[in-house]
């Protein structure tokens, strides 16, 4: 008994139980800084929207608490009072809660970056912390990831800055948000992130080669990752956000770290889990998926009948086929709850209804002959008879009158009334707020758009309710979102998530190649650049001939072109060789005989030999030049005999050395055509002569 008196409460911030374990902290961002849930989120902040009749922020807090987090900072911006009220009434603010929740509000937050900068300014985190959004639903056990993260930091002296938690799931899985689709290149052994890119519907992606040169030999490029938006961050993350004012989102941060790796030396790792479920409700499509996953018990133990929020009257019973019924639910005669249905308490359902794959809130009234399929209804909804609802969301207090049909992806916001005998087309959004209201409120505490959300609303100019749209007794305005083509949008944004228009030309994130001094092949630059460069070189040489420009100046010009088009030295030389060798064809057409060709080419070689000599210095350059020559003559079959003369001339002009030629001859035969080339009589004679010449020169002694 006495020992218990001395035992500290776990919720104490300045805990006396030091050891090595400081209380685990978490930063919960209860605001998404975008408008994906407009106009629903005009009345209620996103974190409080109900998922399975439980506010989303409760799921996140439960996830954090079961991981062992002992201190959570909740940052709110939009409608912070509501969030504060909700949390103060919830079980997490009870004195016995193992997780102490601090609520921090400010109207100035505009992005995740701002929140983290505030965290740094207020010096809130002392140690590694977990960073999540307020709409994350998960039951992943991150203790393993935490351990790995801590171990890495201890071993590597704080190089690893963040560990992202991903879940393995195949591409195209319905719980994968298409906007958040990422491709990650990682080092398999150390789980380090080497490249991180949002796919955004692109069909082709480019990876810079330097990421694969880090000394490890096992890489994975993964597309099967579902981003759970759970990150384990070190305290440096907050500092890094303060240092870089333009980091707004986590992707910015990741990209920044990866780009600045040489300077700062920071690394990001990831943790991929196969068990456990984690997802973020970032748009209505995800809301649909996560809701149905929850009803199907994928997020066990956060299941509806567990009532983990400990609210009175929230419990329900679980029956076969995932049918959950709250207290005092009454079901009319002949009605069937087929499968995957969750019904809140005090709801009454009429006769002959068929309900499947739906979530119905508390205090709802549903009439007779209603068909509900993938419908999500919140509290106090009144639905009359003969209604059909498919894959739609109906918010609090809405009234749906007789014989209405809601087709897929409709949204009825708070307190909307939809009149009798109406069929709403797919994708309709009806709200009591007039779409124009938004302009007046702009200087209020409105959120700024996330950079990816680019839609502008087509204002429907009406102040009265339009009976054609909402029915004779209806109340509400229709919100239309139109695509804005002037911005660089390949993706159409709508409330329900992306509708991708695949754009084969789009190349929003091409990475230029780096200079690689080793033997690996570098990524070829844009084809346009090479062609342009070639033309320019040709032009330069032409002018050189006409105006008798000194070779040094030619070299200068070519060098400057090289920088302008970002071409590597090796390619410069190859293109130069090619251009020179093709020059006679350029000038005089392609119908030359070999004789004429050599006749015009050889003097050119002599004129431009200083240019060549400038670029061909090392043995490797010789080989490259030779391979360019070979390539050209492989294309120009008819002139292969000229090749000997070319080589001879180049040798005489001391552009190429005999060792290089011999080496090229003996080793370079990669395919049949080049083998045949080497069998050319003239060439063989030349080689033989070279060998003899070399013997002589080596006999003379060097």
């Amino acid at each position, binding site marked *: 008994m006495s020992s218990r008196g001395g035992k500290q409460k776990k919720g104490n911030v300045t805990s006396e139980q030091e050891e090595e374990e400081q209380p685990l902290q978490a930063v919960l961002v209860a605001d998404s800084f975008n408008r994906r849930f407009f106009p629903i989120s005009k009345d209620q902040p996103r974190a409080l929207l109900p998922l399975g009749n439980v506010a989303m922020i409760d799921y996140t807090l439960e996830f954090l608490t079961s991981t062992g987090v002992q201190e959570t900072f909740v940052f709110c911006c939009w409608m912070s009072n509501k969030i504060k009220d909700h949390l103060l009434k919830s079980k997490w603010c009870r004195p016995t809660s193992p997780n102490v929740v601090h609520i921090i509000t400010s109207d100035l937050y505009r992005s995740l970056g701002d929140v983290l900068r505030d965290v740094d300014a207020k010096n809130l985190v002392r140690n590694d912390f977990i960073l999540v959004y307020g709409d994350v639903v998960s039951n992943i056990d991150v203790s393993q990831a935490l351990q790995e993260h801590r171990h890495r930091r201890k071993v590597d002296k704080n190089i690893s800055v963040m560990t992202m938690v991903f879940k393995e799931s195949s591409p195209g899985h319905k719980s994968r948000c298409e906007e958040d689709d990422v491709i990650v290149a990682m080092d398999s052994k150390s789980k380090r992130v080497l490249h991180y890119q949002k796919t955004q519907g692109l069909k082709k992606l480019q990876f810079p080669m330097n990421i694969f040169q880090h000394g490890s030999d096992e890489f994975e490029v993964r597309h099967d990752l579902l981003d759970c938006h759970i990150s384990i961050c070190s305290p440096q993350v907050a500092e890094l956000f303060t240092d870089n004012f333009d980091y707004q989102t986590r992707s910015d941060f990741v990209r920044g770290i990866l780009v600045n790796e040489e300077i700062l030396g920071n690394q990001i790792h990831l943790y991929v889990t196969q*068990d456990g479920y984690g997802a973020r409700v970032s748009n209505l499509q995800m809301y649909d998926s996560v809701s149905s996953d929850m009803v199907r*018990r994928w997020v066990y133990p956060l299941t509806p009948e567990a009532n983990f929020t400990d609210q009175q009257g929230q419990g329900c019973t679980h029956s076969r086929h995932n049918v959950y019924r709250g207290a005092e639910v009454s079901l009319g005669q002949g009605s069937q709850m087929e499968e995957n249905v969750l019904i809140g308490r005090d709801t009454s359902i009429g006769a002959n209804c068929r309900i499947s794959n739906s979530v119905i809130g508390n205090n709802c009234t549903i009439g007779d002959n209603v068909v509900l399929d993938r419908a999500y209804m919140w509290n106090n909804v009144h639905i009359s008879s003969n209604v059909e609802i498919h894959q739609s969301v109906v918010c609090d207090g809405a009234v749906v009158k007789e014989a209405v049909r809601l087709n897929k992806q409709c949204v009825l916001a708070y307190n909307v009334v939809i009149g009798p005998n109406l069929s709403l087309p797919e994708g309709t959004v009806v709200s009591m707020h007039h779409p124009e209201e938004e302009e007046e409120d702009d200087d209020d505490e409105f959120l700024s758009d996330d950079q990816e959300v680019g839609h502008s609303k087509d204002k429907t100019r009406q102040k009265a309710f339009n009976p054609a749209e909402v029915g004779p007794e209806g109340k509400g305005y229709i919100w239309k979102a139109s695509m804005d083509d002037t911005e660089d949008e390949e993706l159409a944004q709508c409330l329900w998530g992306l509708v991708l228009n695949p754009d084969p030309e789009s190349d929003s994130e091409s990475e230029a190649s780096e200079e690689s001094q080793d033997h690996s092949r570098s990524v070829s630059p844009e084809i346009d650049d090479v062609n342009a460069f070639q033309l320019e070189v040709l032009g330069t040489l032409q002018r050189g001939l006409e105006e008798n420009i000194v070779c040094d100046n030619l070299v200068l010009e070519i060098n400057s072109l090289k920088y302008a088009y970002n071409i590597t030295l090796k390619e410069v030389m190859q293109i130069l060789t090619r251009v020179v060798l093709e020059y006679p064809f350029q000038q005089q057409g392609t119908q030359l005989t070999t004789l004429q060709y050599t006749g015009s080419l050889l003097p050119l070689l002599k004129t431009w030999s200083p240019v060549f000599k400038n670029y061909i210095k090392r043995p490797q350059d010789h080989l490259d030049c030779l391979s360019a020559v070979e390539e050209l003559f492989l294309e120009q079959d008819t002139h292969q005999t000229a090749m000997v003369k070319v080589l001879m001339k180049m040798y005489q002009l001391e552009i190429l050395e005999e060792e290089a030629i011999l080496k090229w001859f003996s080793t370079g035969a990669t395919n049949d055509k080049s083998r045949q080339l080497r069998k050319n009589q003239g060439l063989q004679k030349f080689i033989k002569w070279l060998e003899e010449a070399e013997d002589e020169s080596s006999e003379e002694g060097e």
Partner: protein
Amino acid sequence: MPGADKEADLTERIEAFLADLKRGGCGTGPIRGSGETARETTALLRKVTAQARWSSAGDLMEIIRKEGRRMTAAQPSETTVGNMVLRVLKIIREEYARSRGSSEETDQQESLHKLLTSGGLSEENFRQHFVHLKANVIEAINELLTELDGTTDNIAMQALEHIHSNEVIMTVGRSRTVEAFLKDAARKRKFHVIVAECAPFCQGHEMATNLSKTGIETTVIADAAIFAVMSRVNKVIIGTQTVLANGGLRAVNGTHTVALAARHHSTPLIVCAPMFKLSPQFPNEEDTFHKFVSPHEVLPFTEGEILSKVNVHCPVVNM
């Protein structure tokens, strides 16, 4: 104030226990040691008795009933919690009666005759205050705890009477009681055990390895083969999660199959269950006794698109 502190401490412990119950040990397999749950419940109730404010047995019983209701609501499938609460209530009643005076002990026996002649409930509203009631109750609860600790051994001691040499015994999944039972018998007898693996959690595997470590000949079979093998089995010994008031069992998924097969072959079936698994509930509503967990074990989440078209259930316990 130490008093307030203790109370808050107590509530905190209760909350922690409830939260733990709700999470139900999802990582460690479907059935989280009911023995531990029973022990924790009893310890918690003892703490409540010690620290809560009550002046008579009636108050105490009210408090315990309230906590008990909360605990059973947290995880309805864990019946041991409710069982232990009932036992503690019984202890309180007994102690109360003893304190009233042993001469009145006989009065407690409610024979049918007494019920008819006494005309209504006796004045047993437990309002009397006794000084030593607290100490007695706590002592009795301690006894209960010791009894809990020894249940497995007590059961195992009877093993020799039931198992004979050269017998083939079948069991399902993993039960600590049955494991101890068989190990005890193996000290003196030689027999063969067949274990049904009990998908999808496959706890039978663990059971088999444990048994074979002590030198018992063990075979693991798939659930589908239970009926086929049953003809060669002499006895079936199983553990359970709960024993219901009508003699029914609430046990690991797959036990029903074994029971049906045994019945068909007229094989004797023995159930090893410690006393905290005896429950006064009746199986009145079919559905609410089943427990399903995340379908992940059956069809992993990564299987992708097929999930939206398929309903996956992962039952843990059924009747």
